[in-house]
């Protein structure tokens, strides 16, 4: 419900206001096939510009929230977020390399592809460092992630200083996240990745619940803890890598929305994960709406508003909640 309202608002409001009825008329018309071509300006705005953009925001928000929720349980740490394992810094380094040095310097990859490759490469390094004798340890993973992120960030900062002033604006924009300019063709891959990963993570919900009791307890009820950790980390890295590749480094969503979901429906991952995904999607759609209306017609990066709008709301929720935990 929330997501539908948020998405409708996101499509309806903007530089060209479109009435809600026309929004749905346009969308239903195009999906059912009765409109095969764009018929007027409003239709163009709805179907060509805003719908893919809003959908991309929803997909990215859902992906980040899911990845954050699953990783928090996996390393049993309330501070864990999708960028925990160096994913974001890897992606940033990849993207910034392309933006500054040109795609030729990075094996001809585009910005998104370089970001995705960077994200996965960083995750693999962190996984390699976070294990000992083939076993993953939460504290080790977290510390390896922090250290790798620091190294990659240093490299990214250095590259930023090498950038010419024109490139710098776009670079900062990318680092803070945006779904501006999203097209239908941008949507298929991230949507598929998020959909598959969500289904996978939802299937692991019961096991993640047990993991909150501790590794030994989870093992004793038949959970292969090491394999579960590896699965969650890899799926989360794919989710986050995809999100960062298409929308840049959007902070806060993956850290806070899982906690909001827990406050609303409790720690059971079979309930909490879908709620977190829906909240993440709705939240990012609304944030995108704010980011492009507050200083219209110019747009601002999403990262500014996920933090500026989200943090106060989260703090309000935090003070009105009895206790905060992962459920353990």
């Amino acid at each position, binding site marked *: 419900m929330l997501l539908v309202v948020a998405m409708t608002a996101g499509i309806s409001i903007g530089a060209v206001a479109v009435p809600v009825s026309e929004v749905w008329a346009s969308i239903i018309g195009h999906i059912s096939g009765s409109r095969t071509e764009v018929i007027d300006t409003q239709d163009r705005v709805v179907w060509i510009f805003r719908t893919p953009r809003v959908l991309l925001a929803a997909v990215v928000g859902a992906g980040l929230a899911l990845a954050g929720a699953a990783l928090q349980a996996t390393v049993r740490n309330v501070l864990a977020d999708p960028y925990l394992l160096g994913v974001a810094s890897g992606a940033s380094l990849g993207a910034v390399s392309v933006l500054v040095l040109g795609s030729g310097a990075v094996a001809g990859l585009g910005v998104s592809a370089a970001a995705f490759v960077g994200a996965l490469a960083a995750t693999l390094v962190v996984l390699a460092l976070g294990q000992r004798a083939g076993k993953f340890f939460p504290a080790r993973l977290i510390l390896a992630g922090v250290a790798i992120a620091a190294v990659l960030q240093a490299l990214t900062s250095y590259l930023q200083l090498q950038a010419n002033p024109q490139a710098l604006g776009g670079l900062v924009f990318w680092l803070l996240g945006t779904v501006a300019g999203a097209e239908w063709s941008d949507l298929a891959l991230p949507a598929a990745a998020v959909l598959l990963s969500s289904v996978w993570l939802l299937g692991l919900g019961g096991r993640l619940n047990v993991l909150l009791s501790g590794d030994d307890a989870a093992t004793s009820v*038949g*959970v292969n803890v090491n394999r579960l950790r590896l699965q969650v980390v890899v799926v989360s890295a794919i989710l986050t890598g995809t999100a960062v590749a298409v929308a840049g480094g959007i902070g806060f969503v993956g850290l806070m929305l899982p906690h909001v979901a827990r406050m609303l429906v*409790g720690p059971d991952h079979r309930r909490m994960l879908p709620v977190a995904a829906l909240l993440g999607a709705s939240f990012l759609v609304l944030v995108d709406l704010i980011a492009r209306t507050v200083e219209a017609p110019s747009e601002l990066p999403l990262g500014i508003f996920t933090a500026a709008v989200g943090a106060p709301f989260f703090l309000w929720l935090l003070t009105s909640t009895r206790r905060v935990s992962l459920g353990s």
Partner: protein
Amino acid sequence: MILHIADLRLKLDGHIIVSDANLSADPGDVVGVVGPNGSGKSTLLKSIYRALRPAAGRVIHEGVDLWRLDARSSARRISALPQEGAGDLEFTAAEVVLQGRTPYKRMFEQDGLGDWDIAANCLIRVGMFGEAHRSFATLSGGEKQRVLLARALAQRAPVLVLDEPTNHLDIAAQLDLLELVHDAGLTTIMAVHDLNHAAAHCDRVYVMAEGRIVAQGPPREVLTPGLIQDVFRATAVTVDNPITGLPQFLFSPLTREGLRPEAGPSQGAVR
């Protein structure tokens, strides 16, 4: 013989913690594992509930090497109450017990009526049915242990492994829990710190020292003052509990020479 540990060697971080361990349990037996801190009790138990893969040797349940099974199949044979505290789970007691059904669940399978039935039954058995909907975090230490025991029972596994289940519990809660374990009637392997508990509740005990099993047998025969002095570095005298008739140990520190003091005037009660 339902459970059999053969020539087990266990390593942690490259160090050998347990070596040449052999242990066996008959159906329905309560087998105690006793020994001083660091003697390898917990490590030995971990190899049974799959938290630590043996460096050598086998853990065999009804002819099947547990380490050749996957985690789920193994958890249908072995349930456990590990030593690590479950902390403050936000789940209700009933939800915690339902987690014991995990080994029977496929990836998307929800808890069915049968699972709730088993969970309710296990809560009744540990006397926690009335608290089923309370948050686990709000329970007392003794109640938490009983709920965790119910979770293990919900696994419907024929073997139960407990790692010092009475730690941090008050006397009444300790006795309650041991009574419940006994009444469960499962083949039980239990690490016990308190030798009096071992004597009262175990059919057989295995004594561990420095990673090896140094003695085994019925507690009355094994837990002699001589063994307690050698293994636990404490002086013990044994008296019969006037109410239960079970052997009861009275402890005092070793004297400087490491010798047992001669029994005093109460010699008549001392065996």
